[in-house]
């Protein structure tokens, strides 16, 4: 009941903020913009008939349309709009939660209530996550409907972005909460979170890139006719970054997982509907699809999210400890 009261209060607090409505407004604008585009049998229709582009590729006639929309959804929506811009906006909105809680006059009141400090901390932490969850439901829900109704692309996997974005946010918010407790300043904790984000983004990203480079060079490169094993030199570094990745929340994996959930499902769809490859060309595109799927599958969602949540828990625990022992 107490935690619920804290969550409800966080919600009331957030809808009192302008930022909340700015986010709602932005979601509505993006969804409306997307709704202005539709596909028919011949091509693309923009602004309800104002412009029409006949293009076979971007038409309902193309069985690959769904796949392309899926790619766009992952690349632009999951990776850039939500995964970067949205995260920053959400962090800005919620960075003040702990510094605000810790101002004199506010903290005295809540600490005097029969509630252990860790519970207060968790209530506030969850409150921020609930806020982001609601925003994610709104945005992903709206765009899901738009893509379904207007584009005839119903992609259930796309709804997976809701939990994924909340999880991604929670990775970052652990830092914001920790720095908020330590510095009591919203702005400082926000800046430090950005720096931390850059730091934790590096190892998994580097490991992934190196692994791709290694794979690419697996097929022996010929120097003066002699095959050269380039892959080995990457391996040491890759292993180092891979090990480091175990100790940070893996933010960059989230987009990979989103790719698996959105595109992966679509690719299997396409492959299934295409049937057995007949021509050499078909076989090639089949192989390409396979490889895409495999690359996306290189990230195991459960290991990645599981170990990341573990790292997050450690950070949250430390923040909670700091919050629990300080004077106000």
């Amino acid at each position, binding site marked *: 009941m107490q935690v619920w009261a804290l969550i409800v209060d966080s919600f009331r607090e957030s809808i009192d903020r302008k930022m909340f409505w700015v986010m709602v407004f932005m979601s509505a604008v993006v969804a409306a913009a997307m709704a202005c585009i539709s596909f028919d049998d011949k091509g693309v229709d923009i602004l309800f008939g104002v412009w029409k582009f006949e293009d076979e590729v971007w038409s309902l006639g193309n069985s690959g349309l769904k796949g392309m929309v899926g790619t766009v959804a992952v690349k632009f929506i999951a990776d850039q709009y939500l995964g970067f811009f949205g995260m920053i906006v959400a962090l800005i909105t919620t960075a003040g939660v702990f510094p605000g809680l810790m101002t*004199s*006059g506010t903290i*005295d009141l809540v600490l005097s209530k*029969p509630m252990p400090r860790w519970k207060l901390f968790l209530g506030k932490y969850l409150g921020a996550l609930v806020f982001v969850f609601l925003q994610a439901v709104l945005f992903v829900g709206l765009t899901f409907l738009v893509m379904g109704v207007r584009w005839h692309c119903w992609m259930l996997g796309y709804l997976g972005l809701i939990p994924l974005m909340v999880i991604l946010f929670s990775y970052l918010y652990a830092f914001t909460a920790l720095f908020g407790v330590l510095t009591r300043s919203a702005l400082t904790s926000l800046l430090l979170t950005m720096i931390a984000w850059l730091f934790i983004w590096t190892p998994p990203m580097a490991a992934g890139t190196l692994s791709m480079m290694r794979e690419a060079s697996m097929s022996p490169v010929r120097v003066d006719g002699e095959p050269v094993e380039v892959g080995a030199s990457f391996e040491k570094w890759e292993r180092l970054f891979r090990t480091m990745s175990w100790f940070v929340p893996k933010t960059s994996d989230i987009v990979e997982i989103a790719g698996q959930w959105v595109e992966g499902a679509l690719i299997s769809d396409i492959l299934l509907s295409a049937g057995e490859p007949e021509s050499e060309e078909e076989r090639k595109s089949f192989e390409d699809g396979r490889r895409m799927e495999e690359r996306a599958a290189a990230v195991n969602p459960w290991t990645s999210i599981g170990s990341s949540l573990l790292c997050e828990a450690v950070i949250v625990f430390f923040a909670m400890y700091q919050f629990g*022992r300080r*004077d106000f």
Partner: protein
Amino acid sequence: MSHLTEMTSWAVDLIGVDKSYGRDIHALRGVNVQVRQGEVFGLLGPNGAGKSTLVKIMMTVVKPDKVAGTILGRPIGHLKKKGVMGYLPEVTRFPGYLTARQVLDYYARLARVSVVDRRRCIPDLMERVGLSHRWHDVKCSKFSKGMLRRLGLAQALVNDPELIVLDEPTDGLDPIGRRDVRELLTELRSMGKTIFLNSHLLSEIEMVCDRVAILNHGLVARQGTLTELTEHTVEYHVRVSGDLSKLSAEIGEMGGTIRDGMIVLSEHDVGKLNGLIDLVRSRNMLIESATPHRFSLEDVFVQILGADAKGLKTVDSEQTSPVVARAVGS
């Protein structure tokens, strides 16, 4: 009144509370406070004495370096017991997006008050602290300082607490508000609540408190009932017709001083008083009056602060508490 039998009825019994902020500020240096169940206890002290620090420690807002003893029979921070305590901090900041009613509902939830009780008692409570009906559903960002203080008081009472800790409750209130608070405190006492009141305002403490502790530089300088604190600090004023100045040396030898044309004996010693009277009479001067002058709490307060300023040892409550003989003639 043996110490042991009283032990059971202490609402607050803290021993050796010690707290430093960082390396430089030693806010509390082994404070002992004892508050009986059902009394109004006043903690008096100048600004910076450590009053707020002490109540923050009681409410677990600040962690003490050292503490022993109990509140309501349990160690500090016991959750069940915290549930029957109410606290008005020195500074309050309420969420401006909530109405008075919502504020009280929110803090009542945090204090684990049931839905039924919340519905029933919150409107009553607002009336009791003087928030009239038309303010109940107004966002508290629109409230004046005095109204916020009243809301704070209501917040402290929202769980029908046994022990109410108030840190400068009348701060920011006008005279009417102060009177209202005094009446509320009296009412609460009659309901059997224990009240721990922090204040730097003597008059306030003097008017409502049963027992008082005077805190200075992180130490309890005196602790006791109002009469205990004031009765052993008596001075005699001897008014004489005639010029005293030529007697000043002899008066000084006998422990008196001359102030405002009268002899002042700053101790409770009837022998010395009569010695002084004899001296005056032997010079054929007439005694107009000899009156014992009981110190007000203010005098005691100023005396303690003065003694402290002169570098005298500030005594701890245990050594001072009760009592010295009653003043003659009072």
